[in-house]
Every structure is written in C-alpha cells, then in structure tokens.
C-alpha cells in the first residue's frame, strides 16, 4: 500500500503488477519495500515479481501483439495520445510519488511528468509517420514493384536503467509500442512505486490489455528469464551493468533476439526504428 506514513489515516493504494490489462499481485506473495526518500519509513510494499509473473506477462504480451499491430497506425496514435491525456490527469499523483519516494522537488517532479507527457505525445504523433520516413519503394531493375515497410518486431522486453528515469522509460515504452510492438517492462527498483498510477494511465487509455505489462522486482533475478524466454523477440537493455549485459546478450542468442543496447535518451525516429523489422515485398508488373 502506498502512503502508509502520511499524516492522516487515509486509504492507501495497494500497488500491484500490471499484466494483461489486470492488476494482479505477484503469485509469489513476495514484496520489497520502498521508503520515503532518505528515511527508513516505508512508503509502500511493492510486488517482487517472480519468473512466473514474468512468464504470464510475456504470454499476455504475445497474445496482444498481433491485435495491437493490426490496429491502424492512426488508432495507435490516438491511444498513445490518450495516455498523455490520462497522465496529465494524474499529474499530481505522479508528482507526489516522485517527491515522496525519490526526493524530487515539486518543480523537478513536475518537469519529469511534463517530459513524460511530451514523450507520449511525440510518439503518438509518430505512430503513423515513421513508415513514410523509413519505408521505401525500391527501384529494382525489371518489371517488379518492390517496397519496404517497417513492421513491429513483436514482443519487446524493456529492462529499465538502474537509476530511475521516468521520462526516459515512458519514452522508451512509447517508442516501442507506437509501431505495434507489445512490451514487458521491468521497472527500476527505486522508482517502482510509479507503477500504480502509470498502470492506471495505460488501463484507462483504451490500450488493449497485454500490450504494455509492468513488473516491479529485481532485475538480477528476472533478467535471465527475460533473456532466455523464446517468445521474446527483442530486448531493450538500459542498464549499465556489464555482467548483466553480457549474460543477457548471451542468453538472447538462443532465438537471436534483437538487442537494443543502452538506447539513447532522446525522442527520435531512431528510437522507433530499433524495434522494427523491414519487410520487403516484390510483385510483378504485367498484363
């Protein structure tokens, strides 16, 4: 429950995982504490997701991906924009968490939320444009029409940076999902309390269940299971831990997952293109 140490005895919110559009507790019954900034006072007990939770999240992401990818780019754009709207509506909730658990000033916290909203709006606007920027009609020699289009790679696991960076990982989620990927996100431990309002943003944005799944837990424990999971097509690894990186890359080889290693912290076309495959279609031209 969040806000256990606030002065009034208000009803605190239980922070759970976000899998397949639902809010389950971890099946393991385990938790880890998040403290009020610079104190030993508990802010909340967060779910410490297990490999079974991870498995469920991947299964949810897998089953949601085709449908999400099959939506029109315009529709995905609308839904990402809706996320920005919902985040705007929860601005104060986010700020409160950042101030209380991470020690941000209100102004800093406000900026971070602003940047995250910017990221959602930015990629909302990109969902139906990147195809035109990177797609191509290729001038092949001979009577064939030949075109290349970018297509979602599939299920992407996002392992967030050790140091919590809200706007960065929201931007990454948006960059990943705007093209039609689904994702399983392993949040950084220290800011994981944000899972609650963030999941609510996703849950109330007409986003189909399973497209974005949020897990709190320990990367050291879960990263190997993500890396080895054969249903995952791509891993976005934002952590700097060299050993974990090598281990994840090694296990990823079993099904040749695409590895997006330490992606730049920027809003850009390049960020989207790290999570697409190029499909080239040939067709003859004749009577």
């Amino acid at each position, binding site marked *: 429950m969040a806000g256990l140490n606030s002065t009034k005895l208000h009803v605190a919110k239980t922070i759970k995982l976000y899998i397949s559009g639902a809010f389950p507790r971890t099946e393991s019954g385990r938790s880890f504490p998040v403290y009020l900034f610079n104190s030993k006072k508990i802010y909340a007990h967060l779910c410490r997701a297990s490999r079974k939770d991870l498995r469920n999240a991947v299964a949810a992401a897998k089953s949601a991906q085709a449908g999400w990818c099959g939506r029109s780019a315009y529709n995905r754009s609308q839904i990402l924009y809706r996320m920005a709207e919902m985040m705007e509506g929860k601005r104060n909730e986010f700020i409160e968490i950042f101030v209380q658990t991470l020690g941000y000033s209100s102004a800093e916290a406000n900026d971070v939320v602003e940047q995250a909203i910017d990221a959602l709006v930015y990629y909302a606007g990109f969902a139906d444009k990147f195809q035109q920027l990177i797609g191509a009609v290729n001038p092949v020699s001979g009577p064939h029409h030949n075109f*290349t289009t970018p297509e979602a790679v599939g299920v992407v696991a996002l392992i967030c940076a050790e140091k919590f960076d809200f706007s960065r990982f929201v931007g990454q989620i948006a960059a990943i999902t705007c093209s039609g990927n689904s994702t399983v996100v392993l949040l950084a431990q220290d800011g994981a309390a944000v899972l609650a309002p963030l999941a609510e943003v996703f849950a109330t944005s007409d986003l189909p269940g399973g497209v974005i799944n949020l897990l709190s837990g320990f990367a050291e424990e879960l990263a190997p299971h993500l890396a080895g999971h054969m249903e995952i097509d791509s891993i976005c690894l934002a952590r700097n831990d060299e050993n974990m990186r090598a281990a994840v890359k090694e296990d990823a080889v079993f099904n040749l997952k695409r590895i997006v290693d330490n992606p730049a912290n920027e809003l850009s076309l390049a960020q989207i293109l790290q999570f697409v495959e190029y499909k080239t279609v040939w067709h003859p031209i004749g009577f």
Partner: protein
Amino acid sequence: MAKVKNSAESVNGDRFKFEYAPAPEAIDMVKIKKENKLFINGKWVSGKSEKFFETINPANGEKLAELTEADAQDVDRAVKAARKAFNGEWSKISGKERGRYLFRIARIIQERSRELAVLETMDNGKPIKESRDFDVPQLAANFFYFAGWADKLEYLFNGKSVQPLGIAGQIIPWNFPLLMAAWKLAPALAAGNCVVLKPAETTSLTALLLTEIIEESGLPAGVVNVITGAGKTGAALVNHPDVDKIAFTGSTEVGKTIARSTVKSKKILTLELGGKSAHIVYEDAAIEQAVEAVVGGIYFNQGHVCCAGSRLLVEESIAPVFVHKLKHRMASLRVGDPLDKNTDIGAINSRSELDKIKKLVAAARNEGYEYFETAATALPEKGYFINPCFFNNVASSANICRREVFGPVLAIQTFRTPAEAIKKANDTAYGLAAGIWSEKGSKIHKTAAGLKAGVIWANTYNKFDPASPFGGYNESGWGREGGRHGLLSYVEVK
C-alpha cells in the same frame, strides 16, 4: 478438377528426339594460380604459418588450387592494415572519390565478366548460365548501386548525419561467393569503412580474383584486406578486439556462435542466416507460373540458397494438379556439368554438403514420406551431384519440414484456408523469405502482412536487386543488406 494423365506416354517409336549436344563453356581464359596468397595492406603476402589447404572443383572432385590458411597473426596484420587505412588515407578522401573507386570496380567486373563467371562455376559448381546471367551481373550491379551512395550519405537517415563504423570483418558463404562478397564490400566501402574479408574455404578463388580487380582499381592499401581460411580464421577475425563490425552470412548455427562470442564486446553485428521459407500457392494462382516459381524457388543454385522456398504450401483443392505439373516440369531439368551452358542444376558444392543432403533425404524417406526425384539427364559419374527431389504430404512436425537442408529438396504440404497457410508458413524458427501465389490482390496483401519474413515474393520468387533490402526475421538473422536499409548497417547515425 482436371483429370491428370501422363503426357509423356509414347505413341510411336519413330519420333524425333531432340538431344542437346554438350555445350561446355571454354575455360581457357581463366588462369588459376597453384598457390594463392593473402591480400593485406595492398600486397599479396604469404601466411605467417605457411599452411595451405586445397580447393576443389566439385563437378569432378579435382584440385583447383591451394589457398593460404590465415592464422591469428595474419588476421591481426590484416586488421592493423585496415585500421591504418581507416585512420589515414581512407578517412581523408571524399565520398565522391570513394564512389569513383566503386564505379571503377564495377566497370572492371563487367569487362572481366566471362572470367569471373567461369571461375565461379569451376570453384562453386553452380551452372554457368547462373554465374553468367545472375551472379556476375548482380556483382557488378551491387558495386554500381553503392558507388552512387558514397557521396550522398547525408541523405541516408532523415535529419541525422552518419559516420562509418570503422573496421568491418566480413565472413561470406560458399553459395554465392562473388555476390555475397559484393553485398558485403560495396556498402561497407561506400559508407567509408575498411574491410577484412574472409571468403568461404571451399570457394575463395573468385574472391581472390575480385581482390585482383579491386587492386587494379587502385583502391588505397589496407582498405580491403582478404584472408583465406576456414572456421579458425573466421573466429580469429570475429574475436579480434579492433574489429568494430561483423557481417556474417552463413548458417544459423555459426551465426549464433559468432553472436555469443561477441557479447562482451561493442561489436555491431549483421547476420544473414538460414531459412526454411514457405512458398504458398493459392487455388486462384497463375498455376503454370507458380510451378515455375516453385521450381526456381527450390532448385535454383542446387538449393544452396538461404531464402530457398523449401516448403511448398499448396491449397488442398489444387494439390494433385499442382504436384502433377511440378513433376512434369522437373522432368525437363538438366542436372550435370556446371560448365555446360544447358545445365540447370550443377554440382553440390562439397562432398560434406552432398553427404548431409543425402542423409536428410534418406531419413525422410525412412519416415515414409512420398518421395519423387527426376531429371532430364543422367547424373555424371564424377563429382558431387544429386537429382532434384521433393517429399509430398509432409507433416509439419517432420524434420524435412523444419530443418534447413540447403539442397534441392522440397517439402510439400497442403492447407485449406489463407489463415492456415499463414500459420503454417510462420511455423518455423526462421523468418527469411516467403512466396505467395494468387491472382487476387487483396489476398496477397493480407497474406504478406501476416507472414513473419523479411522478403516476400508475391507472384515471383528468388528475385534480388542491389536496391532491395534483404534479411530475415527471428532466427534468420539480424539486420538488412541491400538498398538504403542495407547501407544503414554500415554507419552510425549521429
């Protein structure tokens, strides 16, 4: 449904038999050195360990030449030479000049096309008509295409500048020795990288001839270094700490080994690996042409094609007619001397590949699948040859339906609905290519959208072009080669 009769039946004995007399391409213009050296820093040099290995002509099993086996020291020399060139002369010259070199190389390729084609056929075993009409023209076309990019890199990625990656270690396969060298070299050089290239150990001779052409073009020393050798040489290149980029085409197995061995490095990888590509034929297809494409899709280059349409998925309603027509068509395929201009299917590249193919065929026959093989000609007595064949009514679970054979072996399955076709086509760990045959446009587009493959040939198959990106989903590899997208594999976007 049409009633099927055997059209080959005979009415009378006194019939004109149109035999094609042998029409071998002359080999006199090809000069093969007995011993071949390494090309490092603009010079032909001996290997440090002075070890050699043989390369043979698979059409007769005879030795063609000896090649130097480069060891780790040779690899190091080559990488150092590349680094020196990259930090020095090569980085100082303009994109325009880089392009000029590539244009020159393209032109010399065209001028020496006969020599290249004949040697390619001798070293690889592919039919001369393919090396002459496909491999070598495509080789030149790739250099022409990427030459033009060299001074236009500012247009490569929207709103960003790009820079070369540095030293590219390039390991190429034996199925299209020249063409794969072009796919690797041309974009790497256009983008301003320096290269250490390792051709496949059974097919290095044309890469060395191409190296001579590159030398003739006056390309600065160290920009392209060519080392010969087998897996050990390749591993030394992959593991060299000063290599920035690895581009590999070959088996998924070796691709994975390379990927594993580079996990601790910052090396950027592109991998063009195996496939088990599905060729879907709907009942509304242009059936004669679909048969033609299926035949070309699997028997082109003896089936040594990563994107070979090795699984035929034919709609159940037309399956008997289709298979009948396929058999009829296969009966006109001419297997034999690769240098004969009328040969359609040449030699399997090596004894070990032939053994592997035969083993997989034998295993599938043991599993009881309906087997068919034919050809218009008798198999030559010497050399490594096999008749084109297929297995009919194969289960999805069969090994022959899942494992890449890399030979002229087709597995045939049926389907009932488009959704089932797509599902079966995607039922593979690979994702390189797929074919679709239908005369209905909307069906083609919906099928293409559902297929998890990097190259979709709709109403055609096995088409390649320097401007067209090539590469696979899933375990068929990482990245693209060809076109603007392929060039992006050789630059860093700033």
